[in-house]
């Protein structure tokens, strides 16, 4: 439960900010000039804050929409991300966000219209026949706080009018009410991050169980939404072969291949400084303590291990799944040449 809301004083009367505060009537409200005064100072303990994160309501300034790191696309010609939310209410042990920020506070940028303007600018820059994918869950879970933020409803209505742009909602939550309450749109991918339950139960702290996520996926598929499955990162653990084989079987038992827009696979990977910070936050965690290799500038699960895991997952996919919908990090590693994803959609 959110007990404290910090809000930039200029937003006290902002309609969206007021709506958020109304949904959290028991939280104390503390005003500040700029959210960075609360979020950025060094003398903060991310782990302690994670037990009781505050909500920071702010206005996003500067660059609203950014290109995604190379190799992270899912089939569009151009890929961008935007972050209405920094940080996540879940506490996944391998999440890079905990090594990225000093604070565990949840920053909600309420100037949605400015994100939309920036998205329109990017769409305006596309070449003939090009499409762009806009990822909304890069710096936080797209749907975990949707009941508070109302993000999905507003952005689905916006993207519905822009067929050249895809919106990816990436989540570990089962907060699909806003989606199920409306007709599906063709250019939204609701992507669920998945790991074998044995490891997710231990590491996806606070997130709904994998079986609940699969159930939510099934419901969305029945309602006609396009889905994404994100086996990214692939987590190396005791029994990973059985774990991933069963997970993929369970996934396709719930979700028909026709509903799956894309499935992506990637190794556990971190910027080196982020990994060091995460190890300091979790000094006794074996997952983070395990050796890594440098790969494309990141610290990554040793490549031979990752390739074994990736190969097993690719082999476990049903034959009915068009391999052009499978994306690996780095781009298309492990997929044979005839299976390479089409880059033009």
């Amino acid at each position, binding site marked *: 439960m959110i*007990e*404290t809301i*910090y809000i930039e004083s200029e937003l006290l009367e902002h309609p969206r900010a007021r709506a958020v505060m109304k949904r959290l009537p028991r939280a*104390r409200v*503390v005003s*500040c*000039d700029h959210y960075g*005064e*609360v979020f950025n*100072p060094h*003398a*903060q*303990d991310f*782990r*302690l*804050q994670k*037990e*009781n994160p*505050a909500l920071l309501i702010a206005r996003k300034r500067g660059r609203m929409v950014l290109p995604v790191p190379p190799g992270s696309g899912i089939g569009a010609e151009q890929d961008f991300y935007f972050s209405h939310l920094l940080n996540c209410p879940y506490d996944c042990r391998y999440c890079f966000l905990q090594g990225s920020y000093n604070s565990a506070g949840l920053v909600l940028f309420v100037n949605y219209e400015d994100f939309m303007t920036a998205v329109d600018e990017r769409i305006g820059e596309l070449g003939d026949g090009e499409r762009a994918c806009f990822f909304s869950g890069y710096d936080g879970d797209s749907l975990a706080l949707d009941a508070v933020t109302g993000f999905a409803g507003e952005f689905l209505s916006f993207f519905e009018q822009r067929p050249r742009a895809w919106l990816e909602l990436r989540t570990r939550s089962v907060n699909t009410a806003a989606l199920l309450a409306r007709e599906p749109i063709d250019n939204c991918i609701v992507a669920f991050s998945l790991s074998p339950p044995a490891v997710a139960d231990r590491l996806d702290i606070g997130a709904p169980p994998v079986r609940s996520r699969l159930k939510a996926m099934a419901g969305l598929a029945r309602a006609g939404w396009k889905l994404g499955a994100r086996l990214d990162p692939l987590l*190396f653990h005791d029994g990973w072969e059985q774990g991933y084989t069963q997970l993929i079987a369970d996934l396709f038992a719930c979700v028909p291949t026709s509903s799956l827009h894309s499935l992506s696979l990637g190794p556990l990977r971190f910027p080196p400084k982020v990994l*060091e910070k995460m*190890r*300091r*936050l979790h*000094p*006794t*965690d*074996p997952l*983070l*303590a*395990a*050796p890594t290799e440098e790969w494309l500038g990141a610290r990554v699960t040793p490549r031979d*291990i990752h390739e074994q895991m990736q190969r097993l997952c690719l082999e476990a996919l049903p034959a009915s799944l068009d391999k052009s919908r499978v994306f690996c990090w780095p781009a298309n590693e492990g997929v044979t040449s005839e299976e390479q994803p089409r880059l033009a959609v």
Partner: protein
Amino acid sequence: MCVPYTCGRTRQVPAVSVATVNLVVAMGCEAAPLLRALALRSLPVEGGFRAWCDDAHETFLLQAGIGRVHAAAGVATLQELSGHPACSAWLNVGIAGHPEEEIGRVLVAESVHEEAGGRVHYPALPAGLALGTAPLLTVDRPSKEYRPGFLHDMEGSAFMATALRYSSTELVHCLKVVSDNRAQPLSTAGLSKSRVESLLELAVEDVVSMVAELRVPAEQRASRLAPPAQWQKLSEDYACSVTQAALLRRLLQRWNALFPGRELPEVKQTDSARGSAAGELLRQLEAGLDEMWQRDGQ
């Protein structure tokens, strides 16, 4: 493990983390009710301060004097006195004015503003805090002018700025008892000692609760930041530099996380021309960790 090298520089290794709760007050009459409630005993201290601690040396209290300079010096002194714990919780307790709140109300600062410098600190308030909160403005002179909605004191901002050098924003707080308001402003003579003491009596229960509540996260942090058992001896035996000691600490933590209870790999003496003994220790430990993980840690 073989006999360690003895060459190289000797650097002081930071002390083992221990969590304490450190209270700072301005005046003796603010301290008195707390000394009784927390069963604190006097400690010898220099610099014109007075200090106390409990038998277990887990709770400390220092009377710093009035004003920002005294508060900052008091925090630094108490940091030294309490044995450099890296994970202390800090609590500034005292009286404060407030234009609207009733006298005797106990409030925790939700933000701490310094009138002179304009700096603002935002303490991360404890989970489940039952007390009310208010912004706190630290001024340099007592005044009958009140900023609406704010607590007014003379130490809070300096206390925060200094304590945050040693701790973390979740563990540094100001708890104030309203001593004056617009309806009953301070007289020119100020408040009598007995009046201040009786006001602090109203806050004692809340202070004791907050001390207990802050101790929990402070100990969590201390436990997390505590170095591995082998670290102190190895870094001294191998005369690690500060950087090497930090690297050694991380390696030992990783080893313990991956192979709990298992002996460290043997470190073989090699031709020291290739690098320092400490460097060789780090290299061999890292190689041993990788090898062990590849072999049977997976």
